[in-house]
């Protein structure tokens, strides 16, 4: 698959009288392959929006190279008609209706007027199209922003927080829309804090922190790289099971109504060990990390008890951390037993 977005060594620094120089991007790299839904994740202030704005020509990078749909970023204008984008909180004239807003953009971009009704229907604003934008809720403005991005029937869709303000129905519709677009060949780059959504819909992810890439790759690969190797099991006598497993030299603890055991290579050993003692499993699952826990660990933003998490203040004195090598994809066996028969 060809790359539709290639970013290499991107650096961007902001200067202000009050805060001096602040580095937003510190040698950031990212690659997005055609036809994928690529998640772009990072804590607040990590440089996501700066990256997107620089990519779309709204900001100038200090150094680095960017290519979008094969064209250098300096020639973005040549491919702009093939790119649809929402960048952060979209702003519209409050005195225009939703339809008027899209009509003006369509005229400016040479898009047929009929396309306006199509995208309004797609995003669910058809019946509110004549209302003024100032009367729109946050979710409706977000839908209008998505509509504006879709007007061009783009090959590349860049969405910055597309689910912001959407109700569950809207979030589901957004997820379905992205999947449908990817199925039709559109490449989607989506930045979102709804990690469960990202995990569900994205093919690959890039995680940024303090202006640098922390990890990237297929979602399954990123998750597998942070597998704990622990298993969660359900058994009638949790305490007895913990004692037995510890006596056998494994780590074990009770967690809620389950037993968590580590240091086991083959889950069949658990089944056999407990079965020999007359303890029968009703559930045995390998604990796979979710994207949220991986994200929090990699970006070092997991809240500590008693310490409210603070938005990142990028430090320019740190040397870039070496990005961990992508681990091999490991199978995560799932065994769900509802039988007391020995394995």
């Amino acid at each position, binding site marked *: 698959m060809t790359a539709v977005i290639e970013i290499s060594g991107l650096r961007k620094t902001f200067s202000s009288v009050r805060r001096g120089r602040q580095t937003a991007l510190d040698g950031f790299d990212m690659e997005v392959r055609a036809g994928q839904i690529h998640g772009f994740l990072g804590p607040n202030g990590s440089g996501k929006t700066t990256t997107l704005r620089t990519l779309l020509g709204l900001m100038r990078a200090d150094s680095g190279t960017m290519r979008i749909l094969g064209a250098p970023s300096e020639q973005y204008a040549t491919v702009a008609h093939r790119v649809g984008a929402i960048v952060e909180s979209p702003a519209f004239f409050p005195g*225009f209706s939703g339809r008027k807003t899209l009509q003006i953009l369509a005229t400016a*971009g040479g898009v047929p007027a009929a396309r306006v009704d199509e995208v309004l229907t797609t995003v669910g604003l058809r019946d509110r199209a004549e209302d003024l934008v100032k009367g729109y809720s946050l979710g409706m403005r977000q839908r209008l922003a998505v509509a504006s991005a879709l007007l061009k029937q783009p090959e590349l869709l860049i969405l910055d927080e597309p689910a912001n303000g959407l109700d569950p129905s809207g979030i589901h519709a957004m997820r379905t829309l992205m999947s449908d677009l990817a199925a039709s060949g559109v490449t989607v780059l989506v930045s979102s804090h709804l990690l469960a959504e990202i995990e569900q819909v994205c093919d690959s992810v890039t995680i940024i922190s303090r202006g640098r890439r922390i990890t990237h790759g297929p979602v399954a690969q990123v998750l597998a790289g942070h597998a704990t190797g622990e298993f969660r099991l359900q058994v009638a006598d949790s305490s007895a099971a913990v004692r037995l497993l510890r006596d056998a030299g494994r780590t074990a603890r009770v967690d809620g109504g389950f037993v968590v055991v580590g240091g086991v290579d083959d889950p069949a050993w658990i089944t056999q060990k407990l079965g020999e003692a007359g303890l029968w499993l009703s559930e045995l699952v390998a604990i796979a990390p979710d994207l949220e826990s991986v994200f929090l660990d990699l970006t070092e933003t997991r809240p500590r008890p008693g310490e409210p998490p603070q938005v990142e203040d990028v430090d320019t004195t740190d040397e870039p951390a070496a990005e961990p090598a992508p681990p091999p994809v490991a199978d995560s066996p799932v065994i769900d037993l509802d039988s007391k028969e020995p394995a």
Partner: protein
Amino acid sequence: MNLAKAELNRLLSRRFAKLMMVVLFAVFGLTVAVMMIESSRPSDEAWAEARQTATEVRTQNVRDHQQCVEAQLPDSEASPELQDKFRDVDCGVFDASRVKDEQFLSGVFVFSDEIPGLVYMLAAYLAFFGFLISASFIGAEMSSGGLINLLLWRPQRGTVYVTKLGVLLGALAVFNVGFSALYIGVFWILAATTGWAGNLGGEFWPELIDLTLRGLLLALITSACAYAIATIGRHTAAALGVFVGYLIGWELGARLVFELINLDLNEPLFLTSYVVAWVNDGFRYWDGFDGDLVISGGTGAAVLLGLAALLVAGGYFSFHRRDLT
């Protein structure tokens, strides 16, 4: 072309633009009402009284002209009082042929006399109207973030800046011409029905059209400057702030300071001198040493156009280079 159409649509759809038009027409209406409130067609008695007064003034002018010429002769035999009275006076101001009967019609709106002053007011109205429209056309979009949406579609910033300015000035020019024609036409009709049209022959109409066009160009220059300043300041209020700051801080404040420290005012230091020079095709002032000096209309135009060009260029480079956050 698509971008120009889109920007024209955007300009004409803006509620602020529509509101300003309503305000402009309201001010126009108020001006008409104030001018016409006590105007009436001149009666025979009013004409008789005006003619008598005009005759007296012409007679006085002839006498004053003669005295003035005699007092300024090298070996004048005029009294010292007369010599002091007419020292450095242009005797041409006592021209009896300039005295018109209609100048002494009381309670009558005389079109030929009043319209030049009204056209000055028209120029001021259109300049302020254009200033506000222009500043908000770009400023509101920049401050609200709406410009980012446009640039995602048309990332060529130079093209966007120039197209917006072109559409703005073109639309204002068309509107200003139409409004000016309406403005002058309404007063002419009102004078013809409830006042007196006056002497409209000779150079009257060419001079009036010339004055009107100078005012229209001034309004467009003001609009371009407002657009550029709002672009640089990224907000409508930037243009307003610069305008008010310049007016109060320099035009009024500096004049006051000059007066307080007994320093002769140097008119070329003030932008209003060039505005007056352009609109009146010349501005005569006294520098305190060599006597009367003149800022020509051409100089006024050059300074104003140069200022507009400088600001527009500054806005262009600011818009082109700036990070949009």
